[in-house]
């Protein structure tokens, strides 16, 4: 495999492995909790966070994570007690944080080219350090999902009953948003913040068409996602296309193929 000769590609594939499996698993919760749009909003907010980091001279990624979690909490606060509808709240934060990003970049002298890398991914930039960070964050996400699995399931399935038996429902909600924000960190090099939410939506949505058993859905989603991330990376190398975009298009093709298949083939 000629593709494996390059160290950057080896590193990208390794991160792709983590991104594929964790995105698929986290994505099943995101889709079931109907957070896809919220997820898209939060990942776009990462742009504002990165710009803010640049502006203040802080670590852009770290700033973005904290920024995204704050945006998630901000959205939750707006929609509390049904005062504002969720899609409206997401719509407001989605655009205002991107506007903030554009504003801050304009204020900072000299346009920084790295920004494009954050927006659309840049696998050439995957460093050894990224590898370690991705692994660490991957462990945090995997452990959280494993540890709170039952609780997340019930808080999504029946939030009222979750409160009756004493589960910390709003903590679990914020946990999911925080994991989402952390996921942006590990996938930003591969797909970029514009397309991150696709990894959390499309494989899960595909798998949910194949099975009504949660465990099978998780497995299928992971297989699909892994195939699309690794396959997309390889394809992009040979076709000389954008890795992020190739991965997302590949996942979309699988989704629509599944969608168009006759029902009896998919059931169970």
């Amino acid at each position: 495999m000629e593709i494996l000769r390059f160290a950057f590609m080896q590193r990208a594939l390794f991160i792709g492995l983590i991104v594929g499996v964790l995105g698929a698993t986290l994505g099943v919760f995101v889709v079931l909790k109907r957070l896809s749009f919220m997820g898209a909003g939060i990942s776009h907010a990462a742009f504002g966070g990165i710009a803010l980091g640049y502006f203040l001279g802080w670590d852009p990624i770290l700033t973005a994570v904290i920024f995204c979690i704050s945006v998630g909490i901000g959205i939750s606060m707006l929609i509390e007690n049904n005062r504002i509808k969720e899609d409206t709240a997401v719509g407001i934060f989605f655009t205002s944080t991107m506007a903030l990003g554009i504003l801050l970049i304009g204020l900072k002298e000299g346009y920084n080219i790295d920004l494009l890398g954050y927006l659309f991914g840049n696998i050439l930039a995957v460093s050894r350090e990224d590898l370690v960070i991705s692994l660490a964050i991957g462990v945090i996400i995997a452990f959280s999902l494993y540890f709170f699995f039952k609780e997340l399931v019930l808080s999504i399935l029946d939030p009222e009953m979750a409160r009756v038996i004493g589960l910390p429902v709003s903590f679990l909600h914020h946990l999911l948003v925080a994991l989402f924000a952390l996921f942006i960190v590990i996938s930003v090099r591969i797909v970029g913040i514009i397309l991150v939410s696709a990894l959390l939506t499309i494989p899960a949505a595909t798998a949910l068409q194949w099975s009504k058993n949660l465990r099978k859905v998780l497995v299928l989603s992971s297989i699909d996602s892994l195939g699309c991330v690794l396959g997309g990376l390889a394809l992009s190398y040979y076709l000389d296309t954008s890795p992020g975009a190739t991965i997302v298009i590949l996942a979309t093709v699988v989704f629509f193929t599944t969608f168009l298949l006759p029902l009896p083939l998919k059931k169970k």
Partner: protein
Amino acid sequence: MEEPIIEVKNVSFCYPPLEVLEDVSLTVKKGEFLAIIGPNGGGKTTLLKIILGLLKPQKGEVYIAGKRVEELGKWRSKIGYVPQTAQIDYTFPITVEEFVMTGRFGLIGLGRKPQAHDWEMVRKALREVKMEEWNKKQIGELSGGQRQKILIARSLALEPEILILDEPTTAVDPESSESFYELLLRLHEQGITIITVSHDVGVVAQYADSIACLNRRLIKHDRPEEVIREGVLEEMYGREAAFFHHGTIPHIVVRETPPER
């Protein structure tokens, strides 16, 4: 049967500007079987949610087993609840038996998986509502009455000390409904505290130790018979209340009366 297990003290609740509960006090003893009746909009569901700590009253306190309901902690996992309208996502990829298992999640604890004993309790609960053959179905594939039955099973699966039921037999066929009340009676004999909301006064009067009438204010009758006899119902539901008797079970039809302000 002596010590109080649920104490509602001077609770008032309003959805501004509507006053739903006005200075409601209620004591339920350990092992008591209490039925709450009252017209639509009388505040029954609201009262149950306050007892469960899902709604916070503007005035008053609720104590369960001597603790304020906000500070119940682990004790919560001993309370079974069947809501009137469950906010359940029926498209969720989960089977009937896994759904019933969610009732035990509070008992099982963080980071742990259900054990053989947990599954045994789930199967037992499903048998009680005669749904054991449906255990592998996805919850969205059930009929309305079957959905109600698995909600009941979920509340039983956790081996409750307190059962709080909000019109548990609506949508359930008469035969299943009767066997459900027989089941409640057996649980009652085992010493479980039961609060149930029902519109079927005649049925409930046969089983309950006491009946509380709730229409903004609450009046508790420790002898169920007196509720049916002494014009209590007419007073609560208004004069338009009409009674129909077929067989031995009186049914009540209530016409809408605008809430008092």
